[in-house]
């Protein structure tokens, strides 16, 4: 089963390096996927999204990859900066007005 509590997976990267955050999603019927960044004491902030008919989408310094065969989603951050330090959540939905289901989150720590 899932682990709960304060023990989030943590990824530590050097400033300037690329970061890859991974997420295994649960429902093969999910049609829409999204990455959020959450800084301490704040609400989730949108980073990038992707629909199931795509396998890659790029934004500014970020890329999302979707592998539906193994139900895997990843977020790549290029040239990671100290301001990227946060908890990153993936979320999935079946599309339409169905609610987003969030994953457990990964804490990204950027070492200056």
């Amino acid at each position: 089963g899932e682990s709960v509590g304060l023990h989030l997976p943590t990824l530590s990267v050097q400033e300037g390096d690329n970061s890859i955050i991974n997420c295994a999603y649960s429902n093969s019927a999910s049609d829409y996927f999204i990455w959020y960044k959450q800084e301490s004491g704040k609400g989730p902030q949108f980073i990038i999204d992707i629909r199931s008919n795509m396998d890659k989408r790029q934004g500014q310094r970020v890329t999302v990859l979707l592998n539906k065969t193994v139900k895997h989603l990843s977020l790549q951050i290029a040239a990671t900066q100290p301001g990227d330090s946060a908890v990153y959540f993936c979320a999935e939905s079946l599309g339409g007005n169905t609610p987003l289901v969030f994953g457990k989150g990964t804490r990204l720590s950027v070492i200056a």
Partner: protein
Amino acid sequence: EPEVTQTPSHQVTQMGQEVILRCVPISNHLYFYWYRQILGQKVEFLVSFYNNEISEKSEIFDDQFSVERPDGSNFTLKIRSTKLEDSAMYFCAGTYTTNEKLFFGSGTQLSVL
């Protein structure tokens, strides 16, 4: 950039008391949501609201919870009789159309003593 506004930022209440958490969504949004996040855990869906009625709700959203959009501007979450386990950060979110990104507010931290 327009924002989702939530008040209060912190709410402390005694067990058994009623609380109302308030949200002002972005003005052109049509679909509204409440989520909560217990400290250190993932964000959990509570309820979605469209066209002045609940679209979907989770198992968490029991009879103690209710939502309202009383005046076309505010969107509220009421917890009728709070329990210790209701302590969490509650987020309001909205979107203009379905299957698009949700915009989240900064949350209300509810502490039930």
